[in-house]
Structure formats: C-alpha cells, structure tokens
C-alpha cells in the first residue's frame, strides 16, 4: 500500500524506533540486573552498567531463592501443560470422530454452563483443595490451575481429528488395532502440530499465572512460583533494585526465548481462535 521507496524507509525507521521504546522496559530490566545497587541509584539515564556485576545472578538464584522458585515454576508449568494436552486431546478425539448417545446433551450442557455468569470461583476451589487434603503442596496448585474446560484447545483438537479421513482409521482396524491403539499409534502422532500449539500456548499462560499460585502457596513460602516469589521479594527487600531486576530477568527470559523460537505456533493459534 505504501508505494515509494522513501516512504517505506521512513516507515522502517518509525517501526524500529517506536519498537525500541516499546520493549525498552525489558532492555532496561536486563541491563539494570548487571549494575551495582549504588550505580543503579545514582545512575541517571545511562542504561549500560559500568562494570557488569554478574554476581547479581548467583545472589538472586541462591540467596534470594529464585533457584527454588524457578524449579517450582518448571514443575508446576510442565504438569499443567501435560494435563491440559491429555484432557483436550482425548476429548477432542471423541468429539471429532465418534458418535455416541448423549453427545449433543454433553455439548449443550457444557456450553450453557460456560456461558452463564460465574462468581469468584477461586474461593470454592480453595475450599475444595483443602478438603482433598492437598493444600500446601505443589499438587494442590497444579490441580487448581488445571481447572476449567480448555475450550480453545478442545475445539482445535476436535477440528483436527474430524478432518482425518476414515480410511486411515479403517486400515488401522483391519491391521487388528482397537480403538485405543488406533488413537495412540495413528491419530495422536498425526496431531502433533496441535499438541505443539497447545503446549506452547498453555506453557506461556501457566508460566505467567499469578493469582492461583499466590493464593495456594500462602502458607508455604518454599513452594512459591517465580511471579509470587518476585512479589514477595520486592515487598521484603524493597531497596535491592538490582536483585529485583535479576529476579525479573530470570523469570521472564525463559518465556521470551520460547516465544521467539516458537512464535509461529503461538501467533497462529491466537489468530485461528479469533477466526473461529
């Protein structure tokens, strides 16, 4: 739409310049994490550290417990992602390929329930996890975070499995495979693109989850995830700015790297969701 070469050059300069300001908070965070606290306070607007303080990272990792928070976040995120993939794939497979009595009822009931207004469901969830006797454990946080129907992923799996020609299923059955085996050995491997999209999207969401880990680890500081640990860190050591920056970098870098490598899956997934 923009025709002249010059106009396009100006557009690039604008997009780059504005883009730099756009992500500057993150650049500032990474560079600040390498400063000394006195330098940070006196520093003014020079973003670059005079003498990079790499020791800020071991300090944050060991002394400020970010290592433990990191491990908790990894366990928490990987478990939730696995649960969501298993549930959505199984559900999507059945909805996409099998006709069975009660199917319409299940679909309509689920849609109506999801559409009706919800109250503050985290309180009952909190009580439920209490009654199950898994409060104050990572399992409790994982269970609470896995709540809810993952409608988007179920829809993606349903649409995908419905498109697979039935000859493939029949061939597998002629080879003597039953329903379960056909699913595990033929269908599930075929659906790897959807598994990947689900994994990357759910990974980024769960990694960033805040309210549920905050509420469910309130009595167990050692089970905090990175986001909750950060919140607590700035509350306790409010003047350790470089520690804050180092902790924030440790928390954000994994998602940023994964997003940059896998951005296609993520962005296409979201674009596909709104198109439907």
């Amino acid at each position: 739409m923009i025709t002249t070469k010059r106009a396009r050059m100006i557009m690039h300069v604008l997009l780059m310049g504005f883009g730099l300001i756009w992500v500057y908070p993150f650049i500032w965070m990474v560079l600040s994490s390498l400063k000394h606290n006195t330098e940070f306070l006196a520093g003014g607007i020079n973003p670059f550290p005079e003498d990079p303080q790499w020791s800020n990272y071991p300090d944050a990792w060991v002394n400020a417990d970010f290592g433990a928070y990191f491990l908790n976040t990894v366990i928490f995120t990987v478990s939730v992602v696995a649960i969501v993939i298993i549930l959505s794939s199984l559900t999507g497979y059945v909805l996409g390929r099998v006709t069975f009595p009660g199917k319409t009822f299940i679909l309509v009931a689920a849609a109506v329930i999801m559409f009706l207004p919800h109250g503050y469901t985290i309180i009952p969830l909190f009580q439920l996890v209490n009654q199950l006797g898994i409060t104050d454990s990572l399992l409790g946080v994982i269970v609470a975070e896995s709540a809810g129907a993952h409608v988007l992923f179920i829809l993606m799996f349903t649409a995908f499995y419905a498109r697979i020609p039935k000859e493939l299923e029949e061939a597998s059955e002629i080879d003597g495979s039953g329903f379960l085996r056909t699913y595990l050995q033929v269908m599930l491997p075929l659906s790897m693109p959807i598994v990947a999209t689900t994994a990357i999207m759910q990974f980024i969401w769960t990694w960033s989850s805040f309210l549920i880990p905050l509420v469910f680890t309130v009595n167990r500081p050692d089970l905090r995830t990175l986001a909750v640990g950060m919140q607590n860190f700035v509350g306790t050591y409010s003047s350790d700015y470089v520690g804050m920056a180092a902790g924030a970098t440790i928390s954000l870098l994994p998602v940023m790297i994964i997003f940059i490598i896998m951005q296609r899956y993520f962005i296409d997934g979201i674009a596909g969701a709104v198109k439907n």
Partner: protein
Amino acid sequence: MAMRNPEEIKNLTEPAKGKKKMSPRDKKRAMWAYIFLAPQIIVFLGLSLYPIIMSYVYSFYDWTGVGPLEDFIGFGNYLQLLSQSRFWNSLGVSVAYIIGTTTLAVLGGLILAIILNDARLKGKGFYRALYFLPVVTTTAIVGIIMNNIFGTQGLINDVLTTLNIVESPIPWLTTGTLALLVLIVVGAWNGLGINMIYWLAALQSIPNDVYESAQLDGAGFWKTLRYITLPLLKPMFAVIVLLSLVSGVNAFDLVMTLTGGGPYYATETLDLFIYNFAFTTEAGGSTRMGYASAAGVILGIFTFFLSAIYGLVSFWHEIKEFFSKKKSAKAVKSS
C-alpha cells in the same frame, strides 16, 4: 481452521446404517468415547461446575472462610456491598480501566496491523514479534518492573528531569488520577499486541482481488482504507472489542503489582477488591469470604451483561434479519 459441519463429521465417522440399532462396533466405540471423556468430565464437574455453584452459595452466608457454613443471611452481603462506597469506587475504577485499555489497545492494534499487513514491507515477522512481546511476559512481573520505572526516582522521571522537561519528579504512582492513568497505559501496552494479531487475522481474510480492483479504479491508500478496508473490518470490530472488554475485567495481576490498588483505593479494581476481602485481613481482623463471594457474583453478572449488551448492539442487524427471515418462512409455510 474451518470446522466441518456436524453432518459431515457424522458421515465420516458413522457407517451408513439404521438409526436406532447400534452395531457391535458402534457400541464398542461409544463405550470408548465415555472412557475418553471421563477425565475431562470429572475435571469439569469437580473443578468448574462445583466452584461455579458454590460461588453463588457462599455469597448468601456471613462466613470468614474458616469453619462451617452456618450464618445464612440471605441478601445481606449484597445489601452491604451496595451501601459501601469502597465497592462503588472499585466498580468505577474497573469501568475506567476496561474502557481506557480497550480504546487504546484496539485502536493502536488496528493501526499497527494495517501498517504490518503491507505485503511489500520487509521484516514483518520481526516487527510482529517485537510488538507482541509484552503479551507473553508474566503480567505480575511486568507490574513490578513498571512500578520501578514509574517510581518517583524511576526511569521516566530520570529522563524527564535530565531533558529538563519537568523540574521536579512527577508523583506518578502516588497521585490517584495519575496512578490510574499509568495503570491504563501499561494495561493497554500489555494488551495491544494481541489486538494487533486479531486485526492481522481479520485483514488477511479480505480477499486480494478487492484491493486489486480498487487499485484499478485509481483509489489511493487513504481512499482504500476508508471505503474498502474499514467497512470490511466492521463485523470483526465487534468481536475484537468484546474480547478486549472482557479481558479488561481481569486486571488483578497488573493492579496488585503495579499500584497495589493505591493510593487510597484510587486504583482498586473490583477483582482486587474481591481478593482483598477474600484473602487478606486488612478490612477488620478476619477474611470475609462470603462477602467477597457476593462481590464476585456481581462482577460475574456485570461481565455477563457487558458481553450480552455489547453482543446485542453489535449484531442487532443480523439478529433482526434472522427473525424477519423466520417470520417470512412461517408466512410461507402457513400460506
């Protein structure tokens, strides 16, 4: 990702047989279907339906959250909420936040998408990722970083004083109106990327030959935008605004870490209000989960009506058409 219509799916998976009687193969498949669905149904009933029902039940009790559910007080919590100015204040903050972020993020996302949709622009993927980056970063951590950047001695004030734009630092987060403004701007910054992706998807659904014929007719960039692109985007506009409005209801992660609701409740959104009553004891000695639940129900109904009214207004034309078609169909039948 086009979904096949249900009829087609049925034909694919169901062998052509009588309707009532199920073959042994179908019976077996139906059994497997229930087994496959069981985990999802258990999770749905236990972790979705049960909490939804109980979120209403709790709201009728005077209950701290500890001990048995005994003091049924009917609509007592609701009446108390409606007479509490802090509740109305938080509702107002939420509305301001929702409208502010939606306006900024939806329009900003549209402008960026139109620029990035240009087929001849190089490095599109790079720019797309650049502007999308805030979306994938943990909101709670972004709030902490922004709290620092907008602090009295933070980066923004450093830049402004060094460039002599202002003489003394601006109290961004300690003045009510400014804090709300910062909250809205950061919220919009955080959500703009996702709107950009929505708009890009919408723009890509416009067939190319529409543009080609516009070009043949001699329409320039602005004319094409005004008379072709924007009118064609109109149906998507409703969906994208709605998504943005509803996502604005959940401001907790950002508010909690950026302003904490302060100064003096000036940025306390409704979801932070609920959290404060449910899980902190700042409002008088103990948690008040019944009271918080009532506020949660109001928030849920508020969100529900927000989407319902918006949907009705946006799709008014389609709805009217649908009913007039039905009427005419009936008329044809009866004649």
